[in-house]
């Protein structure tokens, strides 16, 4: 279940982050570029939360994979995705990826039609902590979940784990975040990516 997007939308429209809600929109983008980078992320929140919605499109625009990274070279990292494809459960795992490629955080349909819809959300808890490899400090951890639904072909849902290793420059604190659609194909109009801070 989303954190509370309805209240966030109201606060955002009013230009206020108050009202008792702990969720504040940092930036919303409707760019149709496959890759989007959030820069200069404030270090004043406890958690980061990204919500990404994609409407249907008449073309097949490639694998519905999402990548998220704090650095274009996320060495020393891994993701584990537990997904459901119709009635089948399976896993997809990956570790260090080539430069600029990012870590897969979502799994979905690769034949998207006008009737499809995608929803992805990712959470980076305590993203502004200092990095470390011991018991008092740590490396980055994140959780993702979402679904890609296409009544003409298949339905996917997934739960993702993502962690980054201390040897990378991509560890805590997160100051920059790039999310991109897998094969670089432009996204359909109506795509929305919003980064929230949670106090």
């Amino acid at each position, binding site marked *: 279940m989303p954190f509370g997007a309805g209240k966030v939308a109201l606060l955002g429209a009013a230009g206020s982050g108050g009202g008792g809600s702990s969720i504040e929109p940092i930036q919303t983008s409707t760019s149709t570029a496959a890759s989007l980078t959030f820069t200069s992320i404030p270090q004043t929140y406890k958690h980061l939360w990204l919500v990404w919605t994609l409407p249907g499109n008449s073309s097949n625009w490639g694998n519905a994979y999402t990548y998220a990274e704090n650095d274009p070279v996320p060495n020393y990292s891994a993701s*584990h995705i537990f997904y459901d494809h119709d009635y089948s459960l399976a896993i997809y795992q990956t570790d260090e990826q080539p430069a600029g490629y990012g870590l897969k955080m979502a799994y979905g349909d690769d034949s998207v039609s006008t009737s499809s819809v995608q929803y992805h959300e990712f959470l980076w808890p305590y993203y502004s902590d200092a990095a470390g490899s011991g018991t008092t400090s740590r490396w980055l*951890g994140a959780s993702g979940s979402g679904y890609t639904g296409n009544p003409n072909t298949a339905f996917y849902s997934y739960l993702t784990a993502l962690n980054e290793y201390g040897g990378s420059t991509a560890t805590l604190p997160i100051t920059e975040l790039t999310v991109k659609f897998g094969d670089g194909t432009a996204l359909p109009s109506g795509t929305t990516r919003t980064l929230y801070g949670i106090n």
Partner: protein
Amino acid sequence: MALEFIAEVDANSTDTENLVFTGIPQTYDSLRIVGIGNTDYSLSQGMNGVFSLQFNEQTSDSKHAYMRVASDYNGVLTNNEGTYNANYAECGSMSGNAPDGGYWPATYIIDIYSYKGEASNHDVQYFSRSVLATNDNNYSHAAYYAGTYNNGTTAITSLQLKSAFGNWIRFSKFSLYGRD
């Protein structure tokens, strides 16, 4: 729906078996916990760590129940289709003491419903997600949990987060939010 911060617990000062939220307000529709953690215990591969909830810090009244759907480094796991009359309710796992070269933190999101004991036969319900990916995925997992606590009309005013094997190590911490 709003999300309001209530409190934070952590093991910053010392490794701790139980982290406890107390004085939980009775003014929200539901609660959410967001956290990150690990234990100092040496665990073998797979989901052998146990993060559990104990409502109202009850440790012996056998009123918890839970189930789990999960995957680990090796594939999809056989479902735990129900554990009943337990003294705790599982809601997550972790990798333990330095597997794959480090103390990898697991990420947790836990939603708790019907916690105010407003009507009989409306037990506390929770839904949890626990995820972790380690280097080369040797100790990775992703899991959904669902469970209940048979509180009847007794309000939940405290909640114990238990590391069942070893203590929460010091970077572990959790935020409690109210939702309405």
